[in-house]
């Protein structure tokens, strides 16, 4: 998100792994492509991929990497509490799936008397609206706790700080902010890990000198940029020729790019920073009559299905969708006065070919925009709510 050469990183960000941001780099960014690359962060996420997680592996959404804990005894409450959720948006299938899951989790906690109600404001992808939403909650919400899924990292920092100043617990998830005032920051391992998993898979399955087309959604979104920063580095180190394009996640654009690429030469691999358009990319190879590439996608059902149908060599990196449950569960612990991780790093494991069948079976009948690792199988509405995509 930030151009480090200009910005004063808030002091807290420097303080080691408690850093609440996903892109807390400190070195001035050099001109050029790798301004998003941060060796320390890369190394850390590289480690975390193989770290051991605390908690029940059956419930990955409650797992975390052992680290600094926050005491929450002051927040312990007997009464059901009111939660205020400031959501960036539900404008893509990943967020929609997570939002459904979150609401089912909410029902469970309401039934068990932990949470009285959750008031949600949706910022429709607008930083300014989200700031206003948070300010509204502070002034009018009567909130006992805040959950914030920031629309962007730097811009939401002041608002999150204001929420922290109310003295109520604040849970931030998905994208981070540049302050560690929040009670906990919940997120899967991160973008570098995604980049490492996916790029290493391609490197393992391709030869030196092979061509990879990298399909990226947008420039400037930290999570996505880190995925590419890691992947680009790995491709470079292993002599893979990679060309990257921005597609706006538009399958039409993806098809155009791939068919233009195929018109000029062979493509052995496709790397994606998000799985949305993977199917379109695969179809472009079919249409051109070319051999399937080695693919990376995401745990979106459309890709998993296409992957199985075609039998191509692929992997589905995962940006754990089940993290949408975790904020409410974190609040459950907070209201119980239990300590929780200051930075709650959730597992983030790619789906490999041998796991694929299992996930396909578990998610039978789910729509294409559904995410296999949504983690809601034990929730009351399963499976209709996800299958029918009932959005409150």
């Amino acid at each position, binding site marked *: 998100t930030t151009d480090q050469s200009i910005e004063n990183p808030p002091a807290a960000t420097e303080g080691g792994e408690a850093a609440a941001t996903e892109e807390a780099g400190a070195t001035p960014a050099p001109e050029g492509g790798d301004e998003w690359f941060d060796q320390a962060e890369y190394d850390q996420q590289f480690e975390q991929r193989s770290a051991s997680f605390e908690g029940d592996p059956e419930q990955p959404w409650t797992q975390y990497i052992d680290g600094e804990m926050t005491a929450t005894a002051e927040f312990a409450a007997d009464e059901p509490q009111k939660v205020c959720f400031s959501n960036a948006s539900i404008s893509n299938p990943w967020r929609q799936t997570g939002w459904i899951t979150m609401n089912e989790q909410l029902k469970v906690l309401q039934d068990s008397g932990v949470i009285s109600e959750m008031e949600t404001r949706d910022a429709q992808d607008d930083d300014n609206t989200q700031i206003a939403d948070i300010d509204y909650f502070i002034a009018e919400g009567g909130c006992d706790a805040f959950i914030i899924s920031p629309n962007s990292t730097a811009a939401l920092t002041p608002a999150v700080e204001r929420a922290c100043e109310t003295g109520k617990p604040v849970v931030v998830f998905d994208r981070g902010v540049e302050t560690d005032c929040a009670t906990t920051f919940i997120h899967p391992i991160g973008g570098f890990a995604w980049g490492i998993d996916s790029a290493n898979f391609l490197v393992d399955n391709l030869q030196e000198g092979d061509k990879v087309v990298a399909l990226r959604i947008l420039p400037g979104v930290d999570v996505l940029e880190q995925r590419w920063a890691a992947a680009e580095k790995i491709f470079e180190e292993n002599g893979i020729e990679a060309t990257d394009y921005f597609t706006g996640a538009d399958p039409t654009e993806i098809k*155009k790019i791939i068919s233009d690429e195929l*018109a000029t030469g062979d493509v052995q691999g496709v790397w994606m920073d998000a799985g949305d358009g993977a*199917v*379109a990319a695969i179809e472009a190879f079919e249409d051109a009559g070319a051999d399937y590439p080695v693919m990376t996608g995401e745990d979106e059902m459309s890709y998993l299905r296409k992957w199985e149908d075609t039998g191509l060599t692929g992997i589905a990196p995962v940006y754990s969708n089940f993290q949408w449950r975790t904020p409410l569960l974190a609040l459950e612990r907070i209201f119980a006065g239990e300590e929780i991780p200051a930075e709650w790093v959730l597992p983030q494991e790619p789906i490999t070919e041998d796991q694929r069948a299992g996930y396909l079976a578990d998610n039978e009948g789910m*729509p*294409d925009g559904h995410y296999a690792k949504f983690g809601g199988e034990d929730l009351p509405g399963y499976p209709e709510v996800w299958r029918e995509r009932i959005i409150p």
Partner: protein
Amino acid sequence: MSAAVTDRSAVLQQNRAPWHERALRALRTPGGAVFVLLVVLLLAAIAVNPSFGEPGSLIRFVGRTAPIAIAAIGQYFVIVSGEFDLSMGSVVTAQVFVAGNLIGQDDSRTVPVLVLMLVLGALVGLVNGLVTTLLKVPSFIVTLGTMLALLGLVLYWTGGAATGNPADSFRQIGRGGVQDVPVLEVLPYPVVLVTVIAAAAFWLMRRPYGRTLIAVGDNPRAAALTGARVWWVRTRAFMLSSLAATVAGIILVGYAGVHPSVGRGYEFTAITAVVLGGVVLGGGRGWVLSAAAGAFALETLFALLNFLGVQSTWRDTVQGVIIILAVAAGTQTWRRRRRGRTAPAQAPKHVIAAQPAPGSDQEGT
């Protein structure tokens, strides 16, 4: 007139320039210049990347540009009648979702849903048109409202993501093609569709309806006073626009599959293409095929930039510069003509001749 008539078509011929002169004249207008621009861009693209010039790859290029060209043709009807259609992108997205959710993997639903989509498209256009013409809300606002409302409704209905791609039989429309065509290998169906639609649009614009549409865009009051049902003429233009968006959606769902971003920004791309084709915003001027050519020129330009290795982020900038320059050049041409500084104003005039036909000289010159 009540007078006797003999071979009038000879008179008609006699009073029109030969076709090649008319074609030459046309090339000097913005609507004709876009064809020149298209050829230049194509040649440049082929020069930079010779493989682009191979028949197979050219025809695929035409195929994937087809939806934009079809949308531009649809938008043309609305613009030439003096209005805007901003709801086009939302219609495309909505139709993509409809196809994804209602057809599913059930081949037997292809035809009924196809019909339903066309009806839906016509309905959206009808609403746009009626609210614009009868309630007198500017079409910019009406279609802006439809754009928001339609997309919102569809997303609400589907929960933001369609169940899945529709059955392959349906997707063939946008994905498949006639196999084993000599030279080209495959002839993609979208190419066939865009050709048919362009031909139909060309034909329609030469029909009374088309000419009335232009007259309405040029001077709605005069058109109303000649007995045209301005509201209905314009409403049908909106319906054609939404239907074109529907066809674009049908092709896109085949070509690309179901995704909420399919169709995003189509309204502006289509308007850009139409304007690049020399069609004047405000109505009354421009040819439908020029609008389609504008779409191809725009896409060829992008391809060219791509081949030249221009960073894709600069694409917007180039597009912006091009449309301003093209439209400025066009406006200046029309203005110079209107001020009588160019040939058409100064051309020698003579009495429209009627060939004195034997036995009916009471009508002669």
